[in-house]
């Protein structure tokens, strides 16, 4: 099978990766450990993990007294998952049409959709707000899902059609000869093959949606539809000089995303490797 890797190369590879992993995780680690310490210990020994004498939950007590983190979290989950579903489904369908068929408006439609990659959707905020007011969608999660679907589609189409061009024509033609409809070819032959690309698109469509502050603030600021990013921004803003509360609020904002990511990353990695090993 694969050639044996010399030991020195493997040590060098691990050194680079460990060094970069430390750089990535260190800031998060510092914030989380300090959120469990008393105010004095935060300043006296910021790099030490909490000990029984310095352990203190005062920051969390302050933060949890206000607001409803669980509700915010559910709102973010619902908005993110629904938007992702529509981005991936509609995006893959359009990418398939653009990469598979020759028709008159092909290049034009492709350029039209690609235009959205470079336009920050925020530029149209005023008109979007008017549209949502007219549709009675202000302070609903539907408004956010619509905006995020529109925002995610161009990039999804762009990336997915790059990958769809690599799916072998022979396979699709074999399907056609066997009498499969174009819809079946798309759903049963092409979609499973581009799963790695879908996983990649999902991960980085998810990030801007989950982390967006702008549209929740403008379109859905009401308590019952507030997302977790907006919720934590308001907390941190309130407690600027209270270091315990700021660190606790930051940790509370970090931990759910981290858990969500750890759950999804296993799926993502399985998707990537399943598609690649043919």
């Amino acid at each position: 099978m694969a050639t044996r890797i010399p030991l020195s190369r493997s040590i060098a590879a691990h050194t680079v990766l460990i060094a970069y992993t430390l750089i990535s995780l260190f800031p998060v680690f510092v914030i989380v450990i300090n959120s469990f310490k008393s105010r004095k210990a935060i300043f006296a020994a910021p790099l030490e993990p909490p000990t029984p004498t310095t352990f203190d939950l005062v920051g969390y007590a302050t933060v949890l007294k206000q607001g409803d983190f669980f509700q915010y979290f559910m709102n973010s989950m619902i908005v993110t998952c629904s938007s992702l579903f529509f981005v991936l489904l509609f995006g893959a369908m359009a990418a398939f049409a653009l990469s598979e068929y020759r028709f008159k408006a092909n290049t034009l439609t492709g350029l039209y959709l690609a235009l959205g990659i470079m336009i920050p959707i925020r530029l149209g905020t005023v008109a979007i707000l008017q549209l949502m007011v007219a549709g009675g969608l202000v302070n609903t999660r539907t408004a956010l899902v619509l905006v995020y679907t529109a925002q995610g589609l161009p990039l999804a189409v762009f990336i997915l059609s790059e990958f769809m061009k690599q799916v072998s024509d022979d396979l699709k033609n074999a399907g056609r000869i066997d009498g499969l409809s174009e819809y079946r070819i798309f759903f049963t032959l092409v979609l499973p093959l581009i799963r790695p690309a879908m996983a990649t698109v999902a991960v980085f469509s998810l990030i801007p949606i989950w982390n967006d502050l702008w549209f929740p603030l403008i379109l859905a600021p009401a308590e019952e539809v507030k997302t977790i990013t907006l919720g934590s921004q308001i907390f941190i803003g309130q407690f600027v000089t209270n270091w315990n509360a700021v660190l606790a609020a930051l940790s509370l904002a970090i931990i759910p995303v981290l858990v969500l990511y750890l759950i999804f990353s296993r799926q993502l990695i399985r998707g990537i490797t399943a598609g690649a090993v043919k």
Partner: protein
Amino acid sequence: MAAKSFRWHIPVFLAPAVLVYTAIMIIPLFGTLNLSLYNLDGQNRIFVGLANFKTLFGDPRWSASFWNALGNNAWFFIVHMLVQNPIGVLLAAILSSPRLRMAAFYRTAIFVPAILSFVIVGFVWKLILSPIWGIAPGMLDWVGLKSLYLPWLGKEAYALTTLALVSVWQFVGIPMMLIYAALLNIPQEVLEAAEMDGITGSSQFWKIKLPLILPSIGIISILTFVGNFNAFDLIYVSQGALAGPDFATDILGTFLYRTFFGFQLQLGDPHMGATIATAMFGIILIGVCIYLFAIQTRLRRYQF
């Protein structure tokens, strides 16, 4: 060909994406582009043509801020291209080497910053670099370099580069993942054929893998360009709308925000805001056209 019946599946595949995208994105955007051609004359909104752009590029009250923001934005982009993308490719190349232990762990860990919001990243780095808390000077002290410490975010000469590096720290996982997926998509037969010919190790990377992943590197470069020229949040969260110290970190996004919504004593100006937005649109359009017509068409694509 002409006798062929109309292929209904093509519009069916395209319709959902095109409809949502047109209604929520394109129509509101045209509202903005249209607004940049108008201005207030006392109480009335009048059509002024391109006069707003003349003000933006030529009138000293506006142009100094505009060119400053554009220059800063260009530097922000250069730092990303020189630091973020090479590190991303390097990490992906190491990660994709066969039978690497703990590859899943590294991949997961290195991607963590990219999932955090700007709100978190901005505050976390502000706290860590803060002279009050003292983590950064404390750590430099360990390695005997305490004299190198400066409150980087407060110094005009360093603030922008520091923020660009914070942004690189946050997003390096994205090029890494894209390149990693592209490397895994290279068929084993191609690599085995290369090994038969005695091409292994780093020469295999340069001669076989790199040409095959060039289209992905192209996509990453243009995504970085677009992302950087739309950037706003990180600067806003860590330095505020005034992009201090003394506008040293002002980029087009923060300039647009200040103009559009107003700040301190200055009132918001939707018309000049729309003008800046249109200028940003133009800049990004030029970059993307260069990519699409000059670079992408020259890249070879391989079908496996």
